Each structure stands twice: as structure tokens, then as C-alpha cells.
């Protein structure tokens, strides 16, 4: 059963206010590599995403979306991991996570494609259509937190001993929660890579397509295993946009998990290049973030600092308070 997710947010305390995500803006404030760069490069959050499990599903999805080769669909989004479209019955967990960089690249490769149609202005002119294509992979994954394996082993042993389906189902829910926990990240070095390109089709004419935006993300991270866990994350981003100078982001974040509920982080991102709606071409963001988890389904995030110019409306002060709720088995994590 799909989890029902509800996000109740966000109280704006200061003068800063992000512009809504639209087709003309790329939300690049998160230091993490986007999970779906093909969507991010368009600045869209599709409400429905197809996730084919087999090559046949993949082909059928693309064919049905394409329909007439001279027409582009109004809205379409698909995510797929090509390597995993077929089963790998002899690939064990230890083999997969042996951290061979070359194997990691193709085994962890995922692609995302989104199509979005701009608002139409009258019946005489067809609306423009935008296409985003992105790929993402892991070069280095890091290592499992041994505490995760111990906890999982304990739950699986209990499931082996369970003598009723009710107990098994209850243990399944606990296992699922453990696996999907936000803090259950590998330790050691990890390196994520992603790239994306956006194309514009004026009046939705497939013969007039042109690339107008491109992006590259390189995200190295280090997370040691210590009692008071610390994570160091950095990111290098490059955004290429038609008609403006390339835009570079170089950022760092230090995250400290004070305990199971409380985490604090400090981040700095330097942005070089053309900033839309701003006279100042180079800018930076510096912020402190406090996150407190009341329960598995509820946490609060407070962010204070200085935001990028051109993305903070009339001011630079960054002060936000957000509360995330999620109802269902899988938590929904909202960042800003």
C-alpha cells in the first residue's frame, strides 16, 4: 500500500522567501545530489512518475508517451535504473557493495526524464514544451554502518522465529522503518555524480528543439562512525544556461548528530556566475540548521543565516521554520 504523505509547512519567520519552483528556475539550494536530475533541471516536481520494472515496461511507457512522433506529451515523467530492469539473481549484497568504482557507475546508474508543457496563451499559438533528461550514479558508496547490520540481523532473526503472520507483519514494518530511516547512511567516503540537460520545443514542435540548460553535480561526502556522529558533505555544481555565464556552486556542510533526535549543521555555498534577477553576479549562502525529530513521522527544522542574492526576494536574511509530518510507512523528508 502506498504511503499517504502529507507535508504541512512552512512558517516564514524572516524576510526571505523562496520563489515557487517553476519551469524557469532550478532549485539548487540542497547540497545533496538530486535524486532525479532530469526533473530538477526543468524545475518541476511531477505528481506522477512512471517507474518501469522491466525493459518491456520501459519500452511500453516511452512508446505510449511518445504516441505520435511529431507530438510531445503534455506531462510525462519516468525514472528507471537500466541495470535493474532485469533481475540479478546471483548478485549478492556483498558483491554489489564491494565498492568497485567502475561497476558502481553502471550498477547504480539511474535516469530521469520529464516533459512539461508551458501555460498556453490563447488558442492560436501552441504552448512550448520542455524536456529534461538526467542521469545519476555513485562512484563510491562508502560502507554500511555496522549498527545497521546488527539491527537488521536482530529483526530478521525475530522474523525467522515468528510463528504467526501478525508477528511477521509487525516485524516487517519495523524492518522497513529501519531501512528507510533518513540517518541510515553509509559511512566513509562516498562520491555521487549527476548530470542533466533541458531542451525547449517552441510551440511543441519536435523539429525546433534546442538545449537551453545543462547541469552537473559532483558530491563527495565523508561520514565517520563515531558515537556523536559527524558528517562532512561538499558539492560542486555547474549550471549552464543559454545566454548567461556558467554558474558554479561550491559548497560545504558539517552535520552533527547530537543524539537520535537532534542534529545541527552549518553550511556554506559560494556561487559564482550570473545570478538571475540580481546585479551582484557572485554571491554566497551561509546557514545554520537545527533539526529535531519528535517521532518517526514528525520533525521540525529551523534554518537561520544569509541566503543567495536573487533567490531571497527583497532581502538576504534567511530564517525559516518547517515542520514535516508524514502519515504512512515511509517518511517524507522535505528540505526547505
Amino acid at each position, binding site marked *: *500500500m*502506498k*504511503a499517504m504523505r502529507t507535508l504541512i509547512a512552512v512558517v516564514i519567520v524572516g524576510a526571505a522567501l523562496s520563489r515557487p519552483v517553476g519551469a524557469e528556475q532550478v532549485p539548487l539550494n540542497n547540497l545533496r545530489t538530486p535524486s532525479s536530475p532530469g526533473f530538477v533541471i526543468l524545475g518541476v516536481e511531477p505528481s506522477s512518475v512512471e517507474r518501469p*520494472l522491466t525493459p518491456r515496461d520501459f519500452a511500453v511507457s516511452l512508446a505510449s508517451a511518445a504516441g505520435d512522433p511529431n507530438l510531445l506529451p503534455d506531462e510525462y515523467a519516468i525514472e528507471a*535504473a537500466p*541495470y*535493474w530492469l532485469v*533481475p*540479478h*539473481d*546471483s*548478485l*549478492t*549484497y556483498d*558483491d*554489489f*557493495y564491494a565498492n568497485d568504482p567502475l561497476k558502481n557507475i553502471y*550498477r*547504480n546508474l*539511474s535516469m530521469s526524464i520529464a516533459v512539461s508543457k508551458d501555460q498556453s496563451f490563447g488558442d492560436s499559438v501552441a504552448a512550448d514544451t520542455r524536456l529534461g533528461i538526467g542521469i545519476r550514479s555513485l562512484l563510491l558508496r562508502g560502507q554500511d554502518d555496522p549498527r545497521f*547490520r546488527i539491527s*537488521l*540481523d536482530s529483526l*530478521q*532473526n525475530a*522474523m*525467522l*522465529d515468528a510463528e504467526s*503472520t501478525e508477528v*511477521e*507483519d509487525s*516485524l*516487517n514494518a519495523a*524492518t*522497513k*522503518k*529501519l*531501512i*528507510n530511516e533518513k540517518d541510515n547512511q553509509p559511512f566513509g567516503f562516498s562520491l555521487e555524480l549527476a548530470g542533466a540537460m533541458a531542451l525547449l520545443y517552441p510551440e511543441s514542435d519536435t523539429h525546433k528543439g534546442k538545449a537551453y540548460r545543462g547541469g552537473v553535480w559532483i558530491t563527495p561526502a565523508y561520514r565517520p562512525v563515531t558515537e556523536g556522529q559527524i558528517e562532512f558533505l561538499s558539492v560542486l555544481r555547474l549550471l549552464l544556461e543559454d545566454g548567461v555565464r556558467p554558474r558554479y556552486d561550491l559548497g560545504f556542510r558539517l552535520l552533527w548528530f547530537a543524539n537520535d533526535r537532534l542534529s545541527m549543521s552549518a553550511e556554506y555555498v559560494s556561487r559564482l556566475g550570473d545570478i538571475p534577477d540580481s546585479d551582484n553576479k557572485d554571491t554566497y549562502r551561509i546557514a545554520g540548521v537545527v533539526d529535531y525529530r519528535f517521532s518517526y513521522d514528525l520533525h521540525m527544522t529551523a534554518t537561520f543565516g544569509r541566503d543567495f542574492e536573487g533567490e531571497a526576494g527583497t532581502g538576504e536574511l534567511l530564517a525559516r521554520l518547517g515542520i514535516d509530518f508524514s502519515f504512512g*510507512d*515511509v517518511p517524507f523528508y522535505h528540505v526547505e
Partner: protein
Amino acid sequence: MKRVRMEKDYQVADRDIALTIVIGNAQIGISCVKLGDTELARGDIAKKVIGNGRDLAGKTLAIKTVVADVNDLTNRTNVTYQLRGGTDDQDYGLNAVVEENGDSAIYYATIHFKR
């Protein structure tokens, strides 16, 4: 939660019978192996000698395997039970697609040893 069941006969010979359980698709699983009411092994099972074919004939091996979907790139899970030492080597493959990342699948295998 997905549950998969299998029941097979396995022809023994006058040699040791060994069992290996492979969890594929980069998922994590453990198994409990029982001969009759006696637990023979638990955890990762690799080339586990069950006994000599002469002694096993007429007995039943019951295996329960729990596989958790820890691989966020696929919801496929599968288990391969490899039996060696009988008249023929046998690989029994079972699979299940769980609904969401983090879900588990439980596999039950019953193997009757026959002469």
C-alpha cells in the same frame, strides 16, 4: 508482505548432501534450516553439510528465509537453494517483488529427501 512457498523432492546418493542459499539482487537475507524438528543452521548458509544421503532418505528439510529489500534500485528479491551431493545437483530459484523499498519477503522451502 510477500510469502513464497516451494516443495520439492531431492534424490539422494551415498554421499554428503550440502546446501547453499544465495540471496540475489543485492538484498539482505538470512535463513533457518531444520531437519525434522532439529535446527541445523541459521544465518548465511554456504556449503552446509546436511548429512549423508543414506541417513537423509525419507527425511524432510524445512527452510525459512527472510529477505529484506535494502536495495533502493529494485524491489525484486530472490532466493536460490543449491543442493549438492545427490544423484544430480539442483538449483531451486524462487522470487518475489515486494511492494515498497524496505519490505521483506518470506520464503518457505520444503525438501523431501528420496532414495
